[in-house]
């Protein structure tokens, strides 16, 4: 039986072999055929020795035609004793070469640049490499010099300030990228990120920025719509470094270190200093404000040390003088100093990169290694990343090439640090005189969930220590996340005809996330949970949760594959006609699985654990009723599949007119939609006119002028909706019944479809003589249709709203990019200026807020209001402070009012003020570089204009109940007449949340955001030993960068950085680095 199998297997191998031999035979036949006529071969390079892409060679006598292969070589048949070869390539002057029988070996042809044309810029769209000159769309190729000006751990943040139309918002504490504003309300707002021709599904921070060769940003429909249903927010195409054929081995090494100042904890105004805070506490104590809490021996709510001392003095436990002495001591403290000293440090980021590449005639390789170690500004937080990348191209035959890539990333994030200390219950922050350590550095306890007085005595020492010492926590827990990511790629390209290539490419990516959150028995988290589930009966201590650590593990895995088959056609007929077209098909699968689990009684040294009872309720310590031991399991399994068909073609006539068109159809496994309905056809069309190539064009001072216009549709998608009724099973069982249960997540919606974004783009490219000034000006108009958005339903259906394709949004804008060579001698001065204007408007939105006050928004999140910017600042109208009471005066039904409840809950739209956009509609950058000999100095200045933000102010409810103070407390109205100098309302001792809500969200706190910021400065020196003797290295650069240097001018007078939300501005940083090539 076995033998039979083996024989069968052998037979198959033999068959495969014979098939292969057959192909070889065919091949040999072709070569033999080729021998029958005289063949000359040659190599074509440009003046700099670089390979010229798509150069064509024509023989005059034999009428044969060929194009260069992928390494610049060609072979062509000639006839007769002498023949003439005409060599043409876009952007170069035509060359004529005479060949005769005596010529042996390879002909070397050097093409000269056509000075009338700019050097050709090739942009990679991810599907094809197109000549920017012959394109109609809006492609922005990022200048490598600008990309390499700065140093970051990730790729995307380097694009800020050097890419026109790209807006980066950090209001939410992490960067959000927007290309040309907003195109969707409920789908992802970020651009599609493509790395080496395939969408990158993993964490983009896996990519080492040193591995990047170039980046192209696709902005309009003609550029981006080839990416179909995911391209509505623009596309960022990243291409990593590749080696070339026939290249000497070269090694480059880069190293840099960035040191960043400690964050300025005194920046935030949301802090009330100890002396004022204590005075207020004394006042409140005298008013009996804490009596309820102090008398509460049921839940033992926490009180501050000052209140505790005052209480002790009142009860006679200590004298008033003793209390006052200690309280006066407290007035000297400032918790921010303790934070700064114990929780924060200077951030230090180290980055090392090594890059080795080389190539022979048939094989080239590049190998790169990277190591990053970032010490966060929060102590005990750090990140380490190792990247390794390898790319090899192999060209076994002249018409066949093969490329294989492997990328590996290993990232380890440790997050044991504490950035902010949150006391328990409803307290928002620590009281200002809290101390984290005593003079000897011994960690001190701060108030957490129960009053210290209670936890000191309760349980008679039989409970675990119930105090919370923040500084002891940092070393007691282990919170790490390790991510491993592997991407492999294979590409096979065959030139099947002179102008036709076929390629098959595939990518497989696997990314594993392994999270460990270990709370040792020393952590407060563990001690607290064990104590809560402890009952004490005399001397019997009964712990429902066993003593030991608590371990939460999370695993997630992303596995994707993509497979693409594509035909590329490119042909030039002399210089008259030129056609470039592609057509292809693609399948893609993204599979994400994840799981979470919790283990109690875990010992990290012995790897032992204990079982617990999840099923039954247990009594909680201190008459708190009953509770279940918290379970923490969850499982996810999400699979998305896509198929796409696409085609793209452009035709250029006489380098003068270009027309282009593209079409794409995507389909996905959206639940319940029939396969033929899943697809959405997206298309684009465009035209360009390069007037400077026209015969009549005589403006010598402007040798390059091109107009282009495109129109088409991009898409946005959400794969989590369905057109049929869908129920979703909960990942955890019902808390009370322990039964699995399901919810209805979707009712039937036969009309469900993907969002579409129609865009018109009109652009002008121009270049002055000798490129003294080159630039691009573009205008666009977007119409986002069928946006998915909740629409109201009859509540009698049991659902108040459902997501339909019902909203519309429009957008328009201008992007300008100018590059000037102001001085171009030995001393050089170059300036790049970017300016963008973008405006978005929600044109249709069906959902009305039940309460008009619901429209009030600081504009941090998308808040759609028909006719308005989706990121609008909408406030209550503030009419100053009342002369007699210091109450803030609001507007209700057009009249002055202090009925804060009604203002907050029933205000009509007319009583609200639409202030403007919270995102700058005008923004841009100015990058100036001066260089002389090896020295170069540059800076990047950024401006934003025309936007608003809400500043924080005193919230009396939060101050009185949650310890959350604000400097504005000191500016509050205290006496009649103060209303002339301040907008800050008086304190009321029965704090009214509606009064606070009205004041905080009124236009009293709106400020203009406009600012000019010095993004960075850079000084560098280059050694270029090319050609000189004793080459230790070919070239080297040493540089110093200062970043986050601060705001040069701002519209607000209060020193607020409007772009960092409630967080702290990024502290200044200095980077020193070196790059060398061997």
């Amino acid at each position, binding site marked *: 039986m076995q033998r039979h199998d083996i024989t069968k297997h052998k037979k198959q191998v033999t068959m495969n072999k014979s098939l292969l031999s057959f192909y070889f035979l065919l091949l040999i036949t072709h070569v033999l055929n080729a021998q029958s006529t005289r063949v000359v071969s040659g190599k074509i390079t440009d003046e700099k020795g670089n390979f010229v892409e798509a150069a064509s060679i024509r023989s005059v006598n034999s009428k044969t035609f060929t194009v260069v292969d992928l390494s610049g070589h060609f072979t062509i048949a000639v006839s007769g004793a002498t023949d003439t070869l005409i060599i043409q390539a876009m952007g170069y002057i035509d060359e004529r070469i005479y060949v005769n029988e005596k010529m042996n070996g390879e002909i070397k042809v050097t093409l000269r640049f056509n000075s009338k044309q700019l050097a050709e810029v090739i942009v990679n769209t991810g599907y094809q490499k197109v000549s920017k000159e012959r394109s109609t769309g809006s492609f922005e190729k990022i200048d490598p010099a600008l990309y390499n000006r700065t140093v970051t751990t990730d790729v995307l943040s380097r694009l800020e300030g050097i890419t026109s139309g790209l807006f980066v918002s950090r209001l939410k504490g992490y960067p959000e990228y927007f290309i040309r504003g907003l195109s969707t309300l409920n789908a992802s707002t970020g651009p599609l990120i493509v790395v080496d021709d395939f969408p990158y599904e993993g964490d983009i921070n896996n990519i080492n920025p040193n591995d990047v060769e170039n980046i192209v940003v696709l902005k309009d429909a003609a550029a981006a719509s080839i990416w179909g249903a995911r391209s509505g927010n623009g596309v960022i195409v990243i291409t990593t470094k590749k080696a070339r054929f026939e290249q000497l081995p070269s090694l480059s090494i880069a190293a840099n270190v960035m040191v960043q100042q400690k964050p300025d904890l005194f920046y935030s105004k949301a802090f009330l200093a100890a002396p004022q805070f204590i005075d207020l506490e004394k006042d409140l104590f005298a008013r009996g404000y804490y009596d309820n809490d102090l008398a509460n021996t049921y839940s033992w709510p926490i009180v501050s040390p000052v209140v505790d001392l005052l209480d002790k003095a009142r009860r006679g436990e200590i004298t008033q003088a003793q209390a006052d002495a200690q309280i006066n001591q407290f007035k000297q403290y400032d918790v921010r100093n303790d934070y700064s000293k114990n929780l924060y440090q200077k951030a230090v980021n180290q980055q090392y990169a090594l890059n080795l590449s080389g190539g022979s005639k048939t094989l080239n390789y590049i190998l790169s290694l990277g190591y990053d170690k970032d010490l966060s500004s929060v102590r005990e937080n750090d990140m380490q990343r190792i990247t390794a990348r390898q790319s090899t191209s192999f060209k076994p035959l002249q018409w066949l090439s093969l490329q294989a890539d492997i990328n590996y990333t290993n990232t380890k994030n440790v997050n044991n640090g504490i950035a902010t200390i949150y006391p328990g219950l409803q307290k928002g922050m620590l009281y200002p005189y809290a101390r984290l350590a005593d003079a000897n550095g011994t960690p001190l306890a701060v108030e957490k969930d129960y009053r210290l007085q209670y936890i000191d005595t309760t349980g008679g020492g039989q409970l675990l220590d119930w105090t919370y010492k923040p500084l002891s926590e940092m070393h007691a827990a282990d919170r790490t996340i390790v991510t491993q990511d592997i991407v492999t790629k294979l590409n096979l390209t065959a030139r*099947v*005809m002179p102008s036709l290539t076929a390629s098959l490419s595939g990518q497989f990516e696997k990314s594993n996330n392994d999270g460990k959150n270990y709370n040792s028995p020393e952590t407060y988290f563990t001690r607290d949970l064990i104590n809560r589930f402890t009952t004490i009966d005399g001397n019997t201590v009964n712990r429902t949760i066993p003593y030991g650590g608590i371990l939460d593990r999370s695993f997630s895995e992303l596995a994707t594959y993509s497979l693409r088959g594509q035909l590329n056609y490119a042909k030039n007929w002399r210089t008259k006609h030129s056609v470039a077209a592609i057509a292809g098909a693609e399948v893609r699968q993204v599979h994400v699985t994840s799981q979470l689990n919790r283990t109690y009684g875990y010992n990290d040294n012995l790897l032992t654990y204990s079982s617990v009872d999840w099923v039954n309720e247990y009594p*909680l310590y201190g008459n708190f009723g009953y509770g279940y031991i918290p379970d923490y399991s969850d499982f996810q399994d999400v699979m998305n599949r896509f198929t796409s068909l696409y085609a793209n073609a452009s035709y250029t006539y006489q380098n003068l007119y270009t027309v282009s068109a593209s079409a794409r159809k995507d389909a996905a496994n959206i639940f319940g939609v029939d396969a033929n309905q899943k697809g959405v056809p997206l298309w684009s069309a465009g035209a360009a006119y390069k007037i400077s190539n026209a015969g009549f064009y005589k403006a010598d001072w402007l040798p390059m002028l091109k107009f282009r216009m495109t129109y088409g549709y991009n898409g946005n998608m959400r794969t989590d909706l369905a057109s049929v009724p869908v129920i979703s099973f909960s990942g955890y069982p019902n808390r*009370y019944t322990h039964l699995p249960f*399901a919810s209805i997540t979707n009712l039937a919606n036969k009309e469900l479809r993907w969002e579409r974004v129609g865009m018109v783009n009109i652009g002008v490219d121009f270049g002055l003589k000798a490129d003294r000034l080159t630039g691009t000006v573009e205008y666009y108009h977007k119409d986002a249709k069928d946006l998915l958005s909740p629409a109201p339903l009859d509540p009698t259906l*049991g659902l108040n709203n459902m997501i339909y394709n019902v909203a519309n949004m429009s957008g328009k804008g201008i992007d300008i990019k100018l590059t000037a060579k102001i001085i171009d001698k030995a001393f050089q001065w170059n300036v790049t200026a970017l300016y963008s204007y973008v405006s978005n408007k929600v044109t249709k939105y069906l959902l009305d807020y039940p309460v008009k006050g619901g429209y009030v928004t600081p504009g941090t999140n998308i808040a759609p209001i028909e006719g308005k910017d989706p990121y609008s600042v909408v406030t209550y109208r503030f009419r100053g402070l009342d002369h007699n009471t210091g109450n803030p005066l609001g507007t209700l039904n057009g009249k002055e009012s202090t009925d804060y409840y009604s203002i907050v809950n029933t205000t009509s739209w007319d009583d609200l003020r639409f202030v403007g956009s919270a995102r700058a509609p005008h923004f841009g950058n100015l990058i100036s570089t001066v260089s002389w000999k090896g020295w170069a100095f540059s800076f990047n200045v950024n401006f934003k204009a025309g936007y608003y933000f809400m500043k924080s102010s005193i919230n009396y409810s939060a101050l009185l109940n949650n310890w959350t103070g604000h400097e504005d407390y000191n500016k509050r109205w205290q006496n009649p007449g103060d209303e002339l100098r301040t907008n800050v309302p008086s304190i009321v001792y029965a704090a009214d949340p509606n009064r606070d809500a009205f004041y905080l969200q009124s236009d009293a706190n709106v400020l203009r955001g406009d600012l000019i910021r010095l993004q960075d400065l850079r000084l560098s020196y280059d050694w270029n030993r090319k050609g000189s003797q004793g080459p230790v290295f070919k070239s080297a650069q040493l540089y110093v960068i200062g970043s986050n240097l601060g705001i040069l001018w701002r519209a607000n007078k209060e020193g607020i950085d409007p772009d960092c939300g409630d967080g702290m501005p990024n502290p200044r940083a200095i980077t020193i680095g070196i790059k060398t090539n061997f």
Partner: protein
Amino acid sequence: MTVYKSRSVKVQIILLAAISLNILMVSCKTYLDVKPDKKLVQPSTLQDAQALLDNFFMNANYPMLGPEGDDDYYLLDADFNRMPAPIQKRYTWQSDAVVNDYDWSTMYQNILYANMALETVLQVPINSENRNDWERIQGSALFFRAYNLYWTAMYFAVPYDESIAATSPGVPMRLTSDVNEKLARGTLKQTFDQILKDMQQSLLLLPLTVDPVSRPSKAAAYGFMARVYTTMRNYAKAGDYADSCLQLKSDLLNYNDVNALAATPFKNFNKEVIFHSEGSPSRATYSPTAKTDTAIYALYDSNDLRKKIFFSLNSNGTHSFKGSYAGSNYYDIPFNGIATDEMYLLRAECFARNNELEKAIADVNTLLSNRYATGTYVPKDAASQQAVLKMILTERRKELVGRGLRWADLRRLNFEPNFQKTLVRKENGQTFQLPPNDARYTFAIPSAVIKQNGWEQNER
């Protein structure tokens, strides 16, 4: 000749590419049929239907419109002044008081779940193996639909009276999950007919008892039928159903075993609970903001354990309710499900109304002997029918305080001159009254619902 001249290899490659492309596209259809998320299901099995009914909000979030307006509690001026205007208006029975959309839609959401479960069950062929599950799930879905329709009628239709039921507007009856189905309000009689129809069918299908009691059982169905007939003031039938219910489950907690000091003295799913359902806390009825009506507190004897177990003393001398059978940490979540204590009182009331006084007294004694400190309870004696009925209704008041059943009781007892009550509230020196049989016992349907459907609005 160059390699390009003969093209057979390339032709083959193109052919191959074309063929593979074709295969790719043909297989697309099945390729895209894979489920995007394993947790998502187009409901089709008994398990799916059961999972919908086991969603805990089928047992939770019942609107607190009745309890907001009842006389179990009152608000201090300071607390009243902090309440949002809509709650203030409902608390003081203003005729222009409005309710939130979700006070309407939560019950219809449960009806939607029940309908979807029902439609799913009906797709599954019944056989000897799945018969028990099949019947239980269908019976449960019908129970939930009727139960939610009943609560909707309790708030949004006028109190049931045989003489006007055929002409008064009822509440819309959604019997399918079809989004496009257009409904009318129908008559009150149609609403109650539908409730009874669903319940009679459900009674044939449900198992005798279940665990956990978040699922309906035959005992629960009998108990609920007793409630429905009480609401319809058909006390003969109500008594029969209460009796049937107690035949299946009659356990009582002995309050001597309950920790009176605990913040939440009762566990949920305790042995008195026949069917668990709970309301969503309202800011007004939230404990300890809501103060227990002093007249009620005064009704309890000193030996009555409920006095300590049910109420906590506030620092200002007032009391707040803490005796919810919804248990757990959430002592402000009111229990409004069906429990044996309610059934004993209901059966007693029906006995009394039928002049079976001995039996009535026996039920009361059974219950109360479990409510007093051991050895202190003095059994009640039979007196006149009227006196026994009055005593039973007083005991009902004491036992079922905070249960969310008071509103329905007020609505039905207002038909009897002997038991009518005018509710009075005093806030900020102003007095508000709700006389018996007032139109304000029925809430206005949310205006969005009226607007979208063109229905007749309730008069208030």
